């Protein structure tokens, strides 16, 4: 696997992908991408944010695609296959996370359907988290 473009946002463990967030040990607010340092809850003075793996399943909040190749720094495959994107709501964390969708098009998706975290390569090799069929 090529080195990820970003460090510490997700991991693949025995073939299973996990989003890596952080959680405030005072108020339990969850952050993705992983926030370090200070908790952003205005009612909390927490400064201890520790790593946490996010739920791997959630429901589609919304979705779309990119019918035209997105501009750089995105690297497009040749020939271009439209990128599908889904914003997926994780109930336990109370958070919506955007990601590319693997092996599904907008025709296969609907708001409220369940998706599971997976991963796949960007066109130039580095892996990224993706949402896929459970």
């Amino acid at each position, binding site marked *: 696997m090529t080195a990820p473009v970003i460090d510490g946002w997700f991991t693949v463990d025995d073939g299973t992908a996990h989003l890596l967030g952080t959680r405030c040990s005072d108020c339990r607010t969850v952050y993705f991408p992983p926030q370090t340092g200070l908790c952003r809850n205005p009612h909390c003075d927490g400064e201890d944010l520790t790593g946490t793996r996010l739920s791997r399943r959630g429901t589609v909040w919304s979705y779309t695609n990119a019918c035209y190749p*997105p501009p*750089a*720094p995105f690297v497009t495959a040749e020939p271009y296959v439209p990128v599908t994107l889904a914003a997926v709501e994780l109930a336990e964390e*109370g958070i919506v996370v955007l990601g590319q969708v693997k092996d599904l098009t907008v025709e296969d998706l609907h708001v409220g359907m369940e998706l599971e975290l997976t991963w796949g390569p960007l066109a130039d090799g580095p892996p990224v988290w993706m949402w896929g069929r459970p």
Partner: protein
Amino acid sequence: MSAVILGAGMHPWGKWGRPFTEYGVAAARAALRDAGLAWSDVQFVVGADTIRNGYPGFVAGATFAQAMGWNGARIASCYAACASGAQAIDIARTRILAGLCDVALVVGADSTPKGFFKPVGGDRPDDPDWLRFRLLGATNPAYFALYARRRMALYGSTAEDFAAVKVKNALAGSLNGNARYRRTTTAEQVLASPMVADPLRLMDICATSDGGAALVLASDDFARRHGASGPVRLAAVSTVTPTFPGTVLELPNFATDSTAAVPPPERTFRASIAHAAYEEAGLGPGDLSFAEVYDLSTALELDWVEDVGLCPPGEAEKLLRAGDTALGGRIPVNPSGGLASFGEAVPAQAIAQVCELTWQLRGRAGARQVEGARAGLAANQGLFGHGSAIITTT
């Protein structure tokens, strides 16, 4: 005491390929002529910055002032993404209300490249605006499309509704000499335009444009001495931040805030922007004669209609279908033609909205005139939590 608008001026929107300074100076001169004032009367200049035109764009206030001829005026430059223009207005208004100046000139202008807004160049893995392109290919229209699809799922909006917004705004824009797109369109044409980010088609999404807009603001004392009769008043400028936790996925973010510890706020960010303006003006949605809202997409106009309180959530299509939000309707929305007819010239856009408010409230909007206009609202949302709404009254 309040601040009033003595002059409004624009350089027409288009894709002219000229330096942004030229548009800004043309708009500034038009606003000064409109106010019956000279450049030498201006005591304070505020420039809304553009980040796509090199260093002169980062210090837009000075760039415009130098181009018009250094006159020793006090100065400020500011950036707040799409809300830059509103923030520039707020800075000028505050200085006037503090008694530190009588006459201020606010200018915003942009010169934009073709196509999607791209992130600023260079590898910047710490910048979410760079990373969202790198990792996801998530363009601005992708976010607009997420909101549109969500709206369809929640409220049953259709592609035909979105097309009807474009038809309405194109008709208004055809009557506006400053608009870039002056042709009327049909729902069939919108629905036949290429899909860009499902469910949004090319004609659902606003383009990027060149343009410039300017306002001359003054204290009401000065306006009286100057002999201005019944100038348009700035009743509110709301520049609020969101309230934690934000539960709408905002451009350019990868995720929303978490509601694990704190429940969602009473109002979404967009709704809170207008709410703060109403509170400040002592008015409500029912007092408005019309509204200019930031229709980055057709579907987003429908969201805004609800967010500024013209109807409850889920009912914007009802107003649209009844013709209430069209010119001649009960509460016209985007009588200027909106971003659909202008395309976005980021630092100039919020100022352009207030130019339209001014002309409408003076009864000088020509064929676009909203009958008996007494109060108007302009709303927009910048990136990274810069919201703005402005209310003007006669």
